[in-house]
């Protein structure tokens, strides 16, 4: 094969002349650069070879690169145009590889100011690549000239280089603003584009200046479609920042661009309108119309762009897209499968319930032809369709389970499993079918993480289904056939059946006993542990150790245990000191179907914010001995209007007996430096300020933190209070350019908005997977009941109010009310400050007004009473 290939290459004289180039040999060849007279063609060829090697990703050491670079400087003696251009290019390539590249500065400066136009543009770009802030001052004069040069290439080169330089030397580049402005009125389309871009990036911090600039250019004067696209983006950003309505002149400008002669601009304008917040169908319609025209374009890219954007519209305004349904149906058979997939998923969103079956059939025919990425898109479209038409769940479920059986990578399978699980959770009617599809899937599943997830789900949902016994066979098969991780998950799952279903307990015990001799430690340990718990046959134990498990943060537990082992003590380790795992706030927001395509590599899992706070706070001596951080407020509250002199946001951290208020402060005045910044707090009796921890210095635009530590009253029933706050500081005037402050300052203060402490600040949310088991576990020892009339108008509203007031976690999806019901039961779980488990059952009935009967169980009678009495 190899031979034949060589022969073929010889025959057509082709092949790759650069193949098998050896790095060291080529770099040796660079010695030719030193020969006189210079042979331009030969040198050019060697430079090309070096560039090819670098381009293939081979690494060149610093010494080698520096040697070659120095040899190359000799080539400035030749006046061959091609050779000089290759040298410029090589300087850029080597800028980060070789040392002392700045020695070519004077040669480049000479070329940049010389007569040869072909040299000037390229010399500027090379020079700016090797220059640093300190040297930039030296060429500043030439850069200013180059920006307004009459040769468009030179001007563009200078502008682009300035944009790169803006990152490292913003102060210098900002001084060129007049020249840039002049360049923006240049006739050349590219110069216009680069100048407008640079102008915007120089001014973007100053919103007023940016907005002035935009309104100037929106009135006309831009010839370049690229510049117009850029202006549309800037205008859209300003509209979003200013929350300007659709009557703003900027919006008019964007809408007018829908009638531009360039398709690029039309599309940019249409997608800007689609991406705006709060657009109504009246504003969307013109954009949708131009996109509709693009759907039948002969250019694949145009069809693709239009379908992708319409897909986005369909997410929020399906009705606006229905007009395009006919055109979209034509695209189902598009040769570009990406376009076909986007068309189908768009149709799935805009179509009526009756068209679902037909569309699903159509998708089925081409699923095998598309790539995994697009299969994921289809899966998520099917999933959202299921929440739209719950009655269609059986069609979709069988579609998804068919896909599960097909070939496909992990991401694809995971998307299907995710969707099935989501459907099961949203729609109780689909639970039985869904679980059996998943049971079938784990019979032949090569992905450990998916199998364990499904086993966990079966363990949670299976025991509460009408016929739990039928799942046992599927789970136990895993114990026999699978790897250790899956066996362990299966054992846990079996234990849950045993804990929940008394009639199954004897059989489960027999099955678990077989795992006592498993070859894997984890499996054995789990089996042993669960068996000994199950054999006690106590509901409270079952709930605490099998059905609901620990609710502490794992990272927090690790840290607390480590801390405990560092200082040996007689007292046993107290689980209550471990921070509780924070429940993510579940927010329903439309997620784009094409999100999986847009998503770049999975982001690194950030540690929970509370852990970050805990670390930050522990580093402060006054706070370190307050005990373990119990809770941090999720969203900071703004204590100032936006756009004021100082911006202050507050985060509340609850400790066992204290509250620490963290104030993130920003000084937005560039002629002031603040020092010794604190927030003075005053409140009703009981809450006492213990410490102020000042932010030593607050420079312009550099955020700083000050803390105020408040001790809570001993009487635990006193949980709420309001604080009035004042920012106190010493002001020192300073030079806006250098930031150098004056020596003398004066005291000043600034009034902030009030902060309230409420019941929810003392409560941490906890998710109990099996609420009733926990309810029995806590028991009725400290039970309190109350009945109230609520002012809320609907059940949904009442539930939202109660949840946010108590700051507890809704369990068993009881925060969702089925439509048309007049009564509902809400289950809430949480831990009260001090580590008291707290459960709430609220029965709500709607008759003209809402009546609520609330039952609170807790490990502390005071807490139960406090919660029951504080609602209302």
């Amino acid at each position, binding site marked *: 094969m190899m031979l034949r290939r060589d022969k073929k290459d010889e025959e057509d004289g082709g092949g790759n002349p650069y193949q098998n180039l050896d790095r060291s040999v080529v770099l040796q060849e660079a010695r030719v650069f030193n020969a006189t007279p210079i042979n331009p063609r030969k040198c050019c060829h060697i430079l090309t070879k070096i560039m090819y090697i670098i*381009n293939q990703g081979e690494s060149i050491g610093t010494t080698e690169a520096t040697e070659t670079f120095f040899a190359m400087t000799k080539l400035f003696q030749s006046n061959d145009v091609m050779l000089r251009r290759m040298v410029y290019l090589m300087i850029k390539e080597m800028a980060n590889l070789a040392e002392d590249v700045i020695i070519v500065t004077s040669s480049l400066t000479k070329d940049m100011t010389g007569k040869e136009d072909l040299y000037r543009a390229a010399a500027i770009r090379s020079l700016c690549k090797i220059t640093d802030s300190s040297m930039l001052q030296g060429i500043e004069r030439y850069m200013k000239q180059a920006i307004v040069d009459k040769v468009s*290439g030179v001007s563009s080169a200078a502008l682009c280089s300035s944009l790169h330089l803006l990152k490292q030397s913003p102060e210098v580049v900002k001084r060129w603003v007049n020249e840039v402005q002049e360049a923006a009125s240049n006739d050349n389309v590219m110069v216009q584009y680069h100048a407008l871009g640079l102008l915007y990036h120089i001014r973007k911090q100053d919103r007023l200046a940016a907005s002035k600039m935009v309104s100037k250019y929106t009135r006309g004067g831009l010839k370049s479609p690229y510049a117009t696209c850029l202006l549309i*983006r800037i205008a859209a*950003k300003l509209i979003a920042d200013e929350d300007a309505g659709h009557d703003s002149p900027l919006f008019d400008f964007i809408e007018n661009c829908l009638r531009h002669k360039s398709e690029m601009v039309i*599309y*940019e304008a249409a*997608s800007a309108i689609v991406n705006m917040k709060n657009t109504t169908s009246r504003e969307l319609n013109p954009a949708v119309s131009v996109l509709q025209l693009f759907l039948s374009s002969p250019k694949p890219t145009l069809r693709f762009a239009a379908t992708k954007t319409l897909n986005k519209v369909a997410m929020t305004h399906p009705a606006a897209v229905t007009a395009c349904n006919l055109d979209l149906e034509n695209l189902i058979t598009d040769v*570009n499968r990406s376009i076909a997939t986007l068309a189908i998923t768009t149709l799935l969103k805009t179509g009526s319930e009756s068209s679902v079956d037909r569309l699903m059939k159509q998708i089925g025919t081409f699923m095998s032809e598309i790539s995994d990425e697009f299969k994921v898109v289809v899966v998520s479209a099917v999933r959202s369709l299921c929440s739209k038409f719950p009655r269609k769940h059986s069609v979709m479920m069988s579609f998804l389970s068919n896909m599960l059986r097909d070939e496909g990578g992990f991401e694809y399978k995971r998307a299907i499993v995710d969707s099935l699980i989501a459907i099961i959770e949203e729609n109780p009617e689909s639970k039985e079918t869904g679980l059996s599809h998943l049971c079938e899937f784990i019979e032949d599943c090569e992905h450990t993480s998916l199998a364990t997830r499904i086993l966990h789900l079966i363990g949670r949902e299976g025991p509460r289904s009408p016929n739990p016994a039928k799942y046992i066979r599927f789970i136990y098969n895993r114990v026999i056939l699978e790897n250790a991780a899956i066996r362990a998950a299966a054992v846990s799952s079996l234990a849950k059946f045993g804990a929940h279903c008394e009639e199954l307990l004897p059989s489960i015990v027999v099955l678990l006993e077989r795992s006592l001799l498993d070859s894997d430690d984890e499996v054995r340990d789990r089996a042993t542990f669960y068996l000994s718990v199950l054999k006690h046959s106590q509901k409270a134990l079952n709930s605490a150790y099998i059905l609901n498990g620990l609710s502490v943060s794992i990272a927090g537990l690790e840290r607390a245990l480590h801390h405990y082992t560092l200082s040996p003590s007689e007292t046993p380790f107290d689980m209550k000191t471990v921070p509780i795992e924070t429940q993510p706030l579940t927010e329903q927001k439309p997620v784009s179907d094409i999100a999986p395509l847009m998503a770049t590599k999975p982001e690194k899992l950030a540690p929970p914010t509370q852990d970050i706070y805990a670390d930050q706070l522990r580093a402060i001596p006054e706070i370190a001995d307050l005990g373990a951080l119990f809770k941090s407020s999720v969203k900071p509250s703004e204590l100032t209007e936006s756009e004021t002199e100082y911006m202050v946001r507050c985060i509340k951290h609850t400790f066992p007996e204290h509250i620490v208020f963290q104030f993130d402060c920003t000084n937005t005045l560039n002629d002031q430096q603040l020092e010794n910044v604190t927030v003075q707090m005053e409140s009703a009796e009981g809450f006492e300020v213990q410490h102020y921890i000042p932010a030593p210095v607050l420079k312009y635009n550099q955020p700083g933190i000050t803390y105020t530590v408040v001790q809570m009253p001993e009487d635990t029933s006193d949980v709420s209070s309001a604080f009035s706050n004042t920012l106190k500081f010493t002001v020192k005037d300073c030079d806006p350019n250098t930031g150098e402050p004056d020596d003398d300052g004066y005291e000043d203060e600034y009034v902030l908005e009030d902060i309230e402490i409420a019941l929810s600040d003392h409560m941490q949310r906890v998710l109990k997977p099996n609420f009733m088991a926990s309810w029995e576990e806590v028991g009725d020892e400290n039970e309190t009941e109350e009945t109230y009339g609520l002012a809320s108008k609907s059940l949904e509203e009442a539930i939202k109010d109660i949840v946010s007031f108590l700051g507890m976690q809704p369990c068993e999806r009881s925060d969702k009310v089925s439509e048309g019901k007049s009564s509902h039961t809400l289950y809430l779980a949480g831990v009260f400050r001090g580590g008291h488990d707290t459960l709430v059952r609220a029965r709500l009935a709607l008759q003209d007004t809402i009546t609520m009967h609330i039952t609170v169980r807790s490990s502390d009678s005071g807490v139960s009473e406090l919660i029951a009495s504080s609602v209302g």
Partner: protein
Amino acid sequence: MKMDSSSELASLYTVKAVAILDNDGERLLAKYYDDTFSTAKEQKAFEKNLFNKTHRANAEIIMLEGMTIVYRSNVDLLFYVVGSASENELILVSVLNCLYDSVSQILRKNVEKKALFDHLDSIILALDEIIDEGIILEADPIAVAQRVSLRGDDVPISEQTMSQVLQSAKDQLKWSLLK
């Protein structure tokens, strides 16, 4: 995931990468302008994936690994321009077309691997004239070819074939008219 953040949108850094591959998926020329793929290994893996997904279907556009890629092929060459998923696809296509047309001009319409290797220096220069560290520097292929002084022009007439001379005379005439 961050949805189209507008601050990123108003950036001029439009192009993430450009690649010219041969019909075996081997890299002939590739430039990466941001750190999406920071190592040579990641880059090659991406190119391989891209090639596998595109060399059979001539579909012009594909979404892959969270990016939009537009492409074009001729004989034994494939040209790719890579941008972010939220980038205006038509802008990316305009860059691709400029690259292709510039190469076509330099290779005198003979867009294939062998010719590309013969003029690799000019092609590298042309690419450098089209994109400056991710910013579109020039999108007009005529302007690009003009700025890349063709090597053919430096070769003494005697070394050129008659047709080459004619072609270069024609080209020069055309440009002077288009100026």
